[in-house]
């Protein structure tokens, strides 16, 4: 009887701990979101989207930072997506069982969670050093290096989900490999491929570390890719560490904007891939 009692006691202790862990963990995460919402919403106004970043002590917005982020993210995704997709295609279609695929998959998984600040250093050595100055384009290249692993991974996963019988059917009609991939496999995996791109956008839109010494930052309106360019994360970094209340408020608002954008992107991506999983 006492054995049962201790076992039962131990069990209820363990389950209580698991409950406590879940509540503890979720509470912190919830707390962060709530304070972000609370602090960020106060500063939301049309000015945020129409004015450029102000000097300390005067009113302004985040327009140049938002535009800079959009430009660099767009170029970064445009540069990284084709490369990631092609490499993913090779791994899922041509070299499914080749040694190269195993090696690339392993390296890619490491790049996927490698410290992004190191990517910043790499691009600094590669572009900023030789060019002699910080620039928007080197920021975009740094972001593209973070896009590649995400897109590659999802492309490979999604193409592997396409049933082999579809490829065989196409091949039986006489379609060569390239057409089988282009007209059949890509189409069947379209939703998944879009998911990968969305996830990549979500990943890079909040990245700060690789931009700090590639695109640097810019207090003023600039769309010149050859000059330092403002970005939301870099502005948040600068403003949050400043002693000025206005700047800190803008940092909170910027943080809220990024979070909402990232959440919207990942929810869309999830909805797309959920539809695909069901249809499978």
């Amino acid at each position, binding site marked *: 009887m006492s054995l049962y009692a201790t076992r039962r006691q131990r069990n209820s202790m363990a389950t209580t701990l698991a409950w406590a862990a*879940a509540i503890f963990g979720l509470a912190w995460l919830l707390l962060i979101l709530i304070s972000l919402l609370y602090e960020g919403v106060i500063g939301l106004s049309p000015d945020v989207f129409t004015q450029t970043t102000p000097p300390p002590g005067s009113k302004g917005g985040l327009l140049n930072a938002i535009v800079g982020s959009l430009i660099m993210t767009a170029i970064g995704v445009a540069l990284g997506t084709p490369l990631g997709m*092609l490499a993913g295609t090779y791994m899922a279609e041509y070299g499914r069982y080749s040694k190269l695929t195993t090696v690339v998959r392993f390296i890619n998984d490491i790049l996927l969670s*490698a*410290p992004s600040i190191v990517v910043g250093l*790499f691009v600094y050595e590669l572009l900023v050093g030789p060019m002699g100055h910080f620039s928007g384009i080197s920021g975009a290249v740094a972001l593209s290096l973070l896009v590649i692993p995400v897109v590659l991974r999802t492309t490979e996963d999604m193409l592997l989900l396409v049933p082999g019988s579809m490829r065989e059917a196409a091949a039986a009609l006489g379609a060569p490999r*390239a057409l089988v991939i282009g007209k059949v496999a890509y189409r069947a995996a379209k939703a998944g491929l879009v998911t990968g791109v969305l996830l990549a956008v979500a990943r890079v839109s909040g990245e700060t570390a690789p931009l700090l010494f590639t695109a640097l930052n810019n207090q003023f309106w600039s769309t010149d890719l050859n000059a330092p360019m403002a970005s939301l994360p870099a502005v948040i970094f600068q403003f949050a560490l400043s002693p000025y209340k206005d700047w800190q408020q803008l940092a909170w608002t910027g943080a809220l904007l990024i979070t909402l954008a990232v959440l919207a992107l990942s929810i869309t991506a999830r909805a797309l891939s959920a539809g695909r999983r069901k249809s499978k």
Partner: protein
Amino acid sequence: MTTSEPTRRESNGTGDMSDMTMEDAAPRSAVVDRAKALSSIALLDRIFFHVTRAAAVIVLLILGGVIVSLFHGSMPAIKAFGFGFLFSEAWNPVTDKFGALPAIYGTLVTSIIAMLIAMPVGIGIATFLTELCPHALRRPIGIAIELLAGIPSIIYGIWGLFVFAPFVQTHVQPPLISLFGDVPVLSTLFAGPPYGIGLLTAGFILAIMVLPFIASISRDVFETVPPVLKEAAAGIGCTTWEMMRYVVLPYSRVGVIGGIMLGLGRALGETMAVTFVIGNAHKVSPSLLAPGTTISATIANEFTEAVGDLYTASLIELGLILFVITFIVLAIARYMLMRIEQKSA
């Protein structure tokens, strides 16, 4: 084909050119067109194959490029300090003396604190999600955790700076200091004035940040345990705890460790969540409440202001060290996760 060839040769032999061209023109050009189309398709096929393979190779080259360029960039510092760089506490831009010890120390300490908190809590959440949570809530909570894993780290940083650090300074650190003030070892760990920022605060924020990763990977790994095993455990009268402890955990051990290592890799290399609250002080101090620095925070804070080749090279060498450490950790993590994937396949 075999029947048409001799006839063609025959007509060739008779020498009646005009007749032959009139009669054979249409089919022959069709054959030629077909061959042309086929060869252009074959060419396209080959091109596409080589382009995709080149893309895969480029991904490898990027990694190689990162290592080579970091090595190249840190050459002046490697030449100047040698291995002593790893063990020197000096960080003085004026006299050009640099050492990585405080940054490495801070990186390891904050990551260890983060893992000590995130590991049990993450596994607890995974257990909760797979065994205890009401079914209706499982999917929503699981999705929420995965979404949180995607939130940019700068958000955690700014929250840490404005909300968490002031709270810690007034409500957590003073009691800690007075509580452990007389206990031998703990009094050194929790010594000093309550700054709010410091190693402990940074470690805790890192813990919150990697928590969603560890929780969602552990949950995925727990779900690879065949239901038959769990049912068998329940069938012989195991409690939930006994089933987790003696069936689920042993079966999924490799994967859980892989997930934890993945979280560790994130924690080691994390920049933004730490930079705000670490204090950026280049010293090795035994107190967890003291400000310190990490590799990534040092680079983020000082790189754009670094003047002089040696200063820049030292910062790049820090980056190289960070990359090597995380590479090893992540490689072990991926290896372990690969093993559990093979097991479940």
